[in-house]
């Protein structure tokens, strides 16, 4: 039927089910079966092509531009993981590909129809609007129909195409048949292939089309963005309106980096991605990001030094402590490596010096109450404190591995992601085994800091990750959903902005600042 015009129908069937009434997965499924029956009975039946999308831990395509003749309605189970943002994002590319495929086959395509059958609105936090706008922009003649089945009533659903004429909006349908006829009659106007206002772009080389073909839409620009979430994002991501901190206008919400590190022989040794992102909680309360990071190479390019620091305490100043640990800490380590190998690095000395420096900073920046002559150590520590996590990588391999030295004070954690799936912790896991959570975060300044030091070998393909507890708490021991998510998206270095978006993944109650430095070993 190469010369005929086909009518592509994209069906999203989304039974959420109302827990208090009898299950309505049956009802939406019934609506869908009725839809198919009506389509089969329609005189244009041979020309319909149906793609069926359901939600099974995300949008899944059960039918792919299938013909209706002889089609048995697949069973549609209750939806899980219903992200309309992701569904519209996928539909955008599916529809473009289907259209290109059809054009390549030398056929014509009538106006596409998107039909959504559901018994619930999209979940809070589902940012579907921008993806839908993208979809509508790429397929400007798309007809959108949405039927809702709520509380036993059928009516026009939540999805409306803003550009579509709204002269026949039904309040509610008398019955299923009426709902379905209204839905599929959306494309009745497309009995002929539509004439386009602008000249169609030539179809890529193939058999001559029988008539004016529906041209592939011109793309002036590409791109899309969907925020990440792992498991239940909770209500907070959708509801928080980020506020600035009016006492610290110049402290950035998010910082990020992405570089390739070459070794002494100018070979590509490491790929680095780093991001520090303000958490939802600080965004809501209008306080600054309290995490920080730094990295640098020694002048001889023999070593890479990386630092992560998490400002603790309720004060508005602990971000200064974190910044100090990163900046001064990496300088101290670099100076030491100029004369001594990392095996002989005096970590105790480094953290003690950092402690003293934080106290000195405290004397400068903390407002001294008039009745106190001098701020004590404890006074400073109560307002300016931060964790310290260092890694030193020796870029000169020993056998088939690179030596990594890790030094830690506090609950920022270092990990080695091995074989793309196994998270090996390089320190003790916080709160493991305890009944109730207790805040035993150690931090600098401390009178007698005792750093936790380990040395480990990293192989080609491993990823060394330093992170603050904003991610560490969600990662836990590395064998849960977050561990699987990060292992997958970090199987190869993503573009730096995407890395930052991944660090900012939404997950219910995990609203602390997030910082990560990920180092891929070549």
């Amino acid at each position, binding site marked *: 039927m190469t010369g005929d015009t086909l009518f592509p129908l994209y069906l999203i069937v989304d039974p959420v089910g109302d827990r208090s009434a009898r299950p309505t997965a049956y009802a939406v499924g019934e609506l869908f079966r009725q839809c198919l029956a009506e389509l089969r009975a329609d005189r244009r039946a041979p020309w319909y092509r149906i793609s069926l999308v359901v939600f099974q831990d995300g949008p899944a395509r059960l039918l792919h531009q299938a013909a209706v003749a002889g089609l048995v309605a697949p069973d549609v189970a209750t939806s899980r993981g219903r992200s309309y943002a992701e569904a519209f994002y996928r539909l955008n590319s599916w529809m473009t590909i289907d259209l290109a495929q059809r054009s390549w086959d030398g056929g014509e395509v009538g106006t596409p129809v998107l039909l959504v059958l559901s018994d619930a609105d999209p979940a809070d936090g589902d940012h579907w609007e921008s993806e839908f706008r993208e979809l509508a922009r790429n397929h400007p003649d798309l007809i959108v129909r949405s039927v809702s089945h709520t509380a036993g009533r059928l009516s026009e659903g939540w999805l409306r195409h803003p550009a579509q004429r709204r002269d026949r909006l039904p309040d509610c349908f008398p019955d299923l048949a009426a709902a379905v006829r209204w839905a599929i009659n959306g494309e009745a106007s497309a009995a002929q292939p539509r004439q386009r206002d602008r000249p169609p772009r030539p179809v890529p080389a193939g058999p001559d089309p029988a008539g004016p073909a529906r041209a592939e839409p011109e793309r002036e620009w590409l791109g899309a963005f969907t925020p990440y979430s792992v498991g239940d994002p909770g209500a*907070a991501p959708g509801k928080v309106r980020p506020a600035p901190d009016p006492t610290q206008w110049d402290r950035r919400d998010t910082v990020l980096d992405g570089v390739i590190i070459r070794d002494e022989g100018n070979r590509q040794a490491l790929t680095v991605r780093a991001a520090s992102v303000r958490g939802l909680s600080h965004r*809501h309360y209008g306080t600054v990001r309290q995490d920080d990071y730094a990295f640098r190479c020694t002048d001889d390019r023999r070593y890479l030094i990386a630092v992560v620091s998490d400002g*603790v305490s309720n004060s508005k100043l602990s971000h200064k402590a974190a910044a100090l640990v990163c900046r001064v800490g990496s300088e101290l380590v670099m100076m030491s490596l100029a004369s001594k190998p990392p095996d002989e690095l005096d970590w105790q000395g480094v953290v003690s010096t950092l402690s003293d420096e934080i106290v000195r900073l405290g004397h400068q920046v903390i407002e001294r109450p008039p009745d106190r002559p001098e701020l004590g150590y404890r006074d400073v520590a109560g307002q300016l404190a931060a964790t310290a996590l260092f890694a030193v990588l020796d870029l000169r391999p020993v056998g088939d591995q690179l030596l990594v030295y890790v030094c830690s004070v506090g609950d920022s954690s270092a990990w080695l992601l091995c074989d793309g799936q196994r998270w090996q912790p390089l320190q003790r896991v916080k709160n493991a085994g305890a*009944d*109730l*959570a207790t805040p035993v975060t150690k931090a600098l300044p401390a009178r007698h800091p005792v750093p936790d030091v380990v040395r480990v070998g990293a192989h080609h393909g491993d990823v060394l990750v330093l992170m603050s507890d904003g991610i560490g708490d969600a990662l*836990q021991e590395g064998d849960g*959903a977050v561990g699987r998510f990060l292992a997958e998206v970090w199987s190869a270095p993503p573009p730096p902005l995407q890395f930052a978006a991944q660090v900012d993944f939404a997950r*219910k*109650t995990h609203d602390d600042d997030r910082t990560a430095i990920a180092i891929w070993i070549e």
Partner: protein
Amino acid sequence: MDQSGAKLLPFYLVIDVSVSMEGSKLQSANNIMPTIVDALAENPILSDKVRFGLIDFSDDAQVRLPLCDLLDPNLTLPALSVRGATSYAAAFTTLRHEIDANIAQLKADQYVVHRPAVWFISDGAPTDRASDWQRAFTELTTAKAYPNLIPCGVDQADLKVMGSLIHPSSGSKKMALYMMEPNHDPAKAITGMAEILISSMIHSGYSLAGGNTGTILPPKSSLPPGITQFDPDDFV
């Protein structure tokens, strides 16, 4: 869905529904949960973490709302009604069992559970034997997962008895007692105590965001009229 690692702040409201609560006091009591729901709806950072349980007590104690997410759209808030006498022993025993069971379940589901806060509201002295309720109270507060307990007394509540219920009663994390001032309207006092509860919840949530744990009580200067705060040191 895998919730592992999610942080949880459990709150329990334990409320006296003895016969003397009938009338405007009960009405105020019934208004507490909807007011908390409203406060949570405005604070998305907090609401994702808070779980609320409601226990009422008279001759016996009943769990009217098991620990749950108050913003769950399918939730129906229970309506309280009065029953009989005032057994503190029943309240503390049921509370202890609830807390133990809830924390065990949450730990099994891999939540990170912070110490529960209990707001205990009574309008009169206990009618059971002192040795009985004191033993039940000790069992509650010496358990490993003991709660922070903030007693609130209105009307005929006994000041000394209520004062003995503050837990912890010493140290940096000690709690306090809120008592209605004499001759004040008890119904209004109950509403005031709900405001203190909500303020404490919001402060604790904010403090948790800063890395500190524990139940934060609002400053004395911000208490609603008709309510006095008593600290453990006030009872020698």
